[in-house]
């Protein structure tokens, strides 16, 4: 069995409240994502979804435990190296797309390339946008694109640096029901085409129902379970 592209071991994370009290947010014994695997992570508000994504992407450091991304232990890296791993190994798709408003569709993809180890490959950026049917919208800014087109730019951007995993944080939360399915289809087909693992975080059961592997955060994050009860 090939090594997991994401592996969490005994990860703990807590935050200090204004009163000084510490609140546990993550308490996960084990969590893995295999190469090319697609899975849905369900979780209610406050279940630690965002914190989990921040820990996996190296934005937040866990208090304890180990986080491996493509075999690299993030806990042993300083912030700059974690940033480099995030740029190279992970593709991010956000709930509100988070495109850079002053940049064109093409530039949004090129910006992501600027932070990776590889060179800024304009031809590849154009190909990626062409693959999501935006070849005719390369030089349009986000404000000039429809919601669906913006989300497709976000998907193309997530694949800019040939990541091993795409992390999609509530990718359907900001769009109408008619477009939700298109976004999920696009994510799945694109990740399949590129052989990239996909982790979709969602609170929508109709979305998670489409994935053969679906996990509820409350089931493997003991801190979330405590909050629920």
């Amino acid at each position, binding site marked *: 069995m090939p090594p997991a592209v994401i592996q969490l071991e005994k990860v703990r994370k807590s935050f200090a409240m204004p009163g000084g009290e510490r609140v546990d947010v993550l308490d996960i014994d084990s969590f893995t994502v295999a190469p090319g695997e697609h899975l849905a992570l369900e*979780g*209610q*508000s*406050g*279940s*630690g*979804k*965002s*914190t989990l994504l*921040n820990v996996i*992407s190296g*934005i*937040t450091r866990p208090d304890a435990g180990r986080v491996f991304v493509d075999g690299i232990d993030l806990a042993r890296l300083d*912030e*700059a190296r974690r*940033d*480099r791993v*995030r*740029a*190279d190994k*992970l593709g*991010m798709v*956000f*709930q*509100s797309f*988070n*495109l*850079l*408003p*002053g*940049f064109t569709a093409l*530039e949004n993809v*090129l*910006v*992501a*390339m*600027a*932070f*990776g180890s590889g060179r*800024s490959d304009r031809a590849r950026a154009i190909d990626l946008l062409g693959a999501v049917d935006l070849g005719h919208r390369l030089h349009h800014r986000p404000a000039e694109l429809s919601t669906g087109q913006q989300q497709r730019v976000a998907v193309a*951007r997530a694949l800019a*640096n040939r990541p091993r995993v795409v992390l999609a*944080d*509530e990718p359907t*939360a900001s769009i109408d029901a008619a477009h939700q399915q298109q976004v999920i289809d696009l994510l799945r087909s694109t990740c399949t085409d590129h052989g990239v693992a996909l982790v979709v*975080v969602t*609170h929508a059961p109709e979305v998670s129902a489409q994935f053969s592997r679906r996990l509820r955060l409350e089931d493997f994050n003991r801190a979330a379970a405590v909050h629920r009860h």
Partner: protein
Amino acid sequence: MNLLGIAWRNIRQRPLTSALTALSLALGVALVVATLVTGALVQQAFESGAGLGYNMIGGAKGSPLQLVLNTVYFISKPIENVGWDTYQEFLPAARRADGVDGKYAASTGVAVPTCMGDYYRSFRVVGTNADFFGRLTRGDGEPFRFAAGSNFRDDDFFAGVIGATVAETLGLEVGDPFSPTHGADDGKEHDPFKVVGILERTWTPIDRGVFVNMEGFYLQDGHAKPLEDGAEPEAVEAVAGHGPAPLPAAQREVTAILLETASLPGLPPELTAMGLRTAINEGREAQAALPVAEIRQLLDLFVRPLELVLLLVTAMVVLVSALGILISMVGSSLERSRDVAIMRALGARRGHVLATVLIEAVLLAVGGGVVGWVLGHGIVAAIGPWIAANAGVRAGFFSSAPEAEAFLVPFLVLLAIAAALLPALAAYRTDVSRWLQGPG
């Protein structure tokens, strides 16, 4: 796309704010450049005049600076006059009536007398002899050249040569008559002289001078030195065919004597000059001033400090303009925080976002600086004719103060970095999880 491209895109994202920020900086830089260049031109004006083919000026005792300013730059009033016999002391035997060398003749190469006190329509009138344009040079070692006509002859008493600015301003041509006025613009009108030569432009104060034959100058009302009580006027006969009789020597005075010291065998020229200067200054009749030394002292004492004050004021303008960069960047910090968080989430390191903000500020500063540089030189070019007319130096778009201007770009870059440091550090510290947080 690299960090430069990202910074440039950030600037274009806020076109109006960016343009206004750069413009305010450009105006400050334009002021600094115009001040620097004008200062350099003033210096050039003095220095070019200080090397007019002579290295010493003899004149009445008093302020050596006043003697230099009046003689070389036609500024200020003459101190007093010295007697004709004082001038004669610089002449060799062959040029003296008594056939004996003057006491300073051995150290003197060229001695040219000048008489001042008259005006022609706000331009100073200088009485002199043909040696002024025949034996002195125009400062760059080149002989004087005439755009029209030629030098006057010593026996043509009522002839004159005018500078290029005088000719242009007054529209005078060779053959035109002109009548100087005594003491001031509105003084008593003298006999007319005739323009026989118009000088090519020299970019020195000479361009603003009206030079007349001193023999004619002496014959005007009020120009003859009064005779002492009981003294009989010396009889001088007119030379046939050459107009009136010249003024007797006893009634002559000169305002200044332009001196080119001789190079004595075995002695360096500077030493000859110093020796002559000491000898003159130790006498009772006259003083000797070194134009270069006096002008350097004037520049050091007054012009440079004034220039420095002006520069400080304009530098303050630039500093205030640089605050515009800070204000513009702080103003857009909310918008920037979200963009920075997105870039950080995409893998940008803190150093990347810090550098992007600093590059953005440097681009604005350099852009504004280049526009300001062009604008500053444009201002100098626009007032060039006025500077040329009043200071007698060439002033155009490419007039420059190269040493000072060379510091401008590094100064602007440092200023921009200083101004952008605060917003750059804010970007550096941006909390990614806070700005991109979704529910859960």
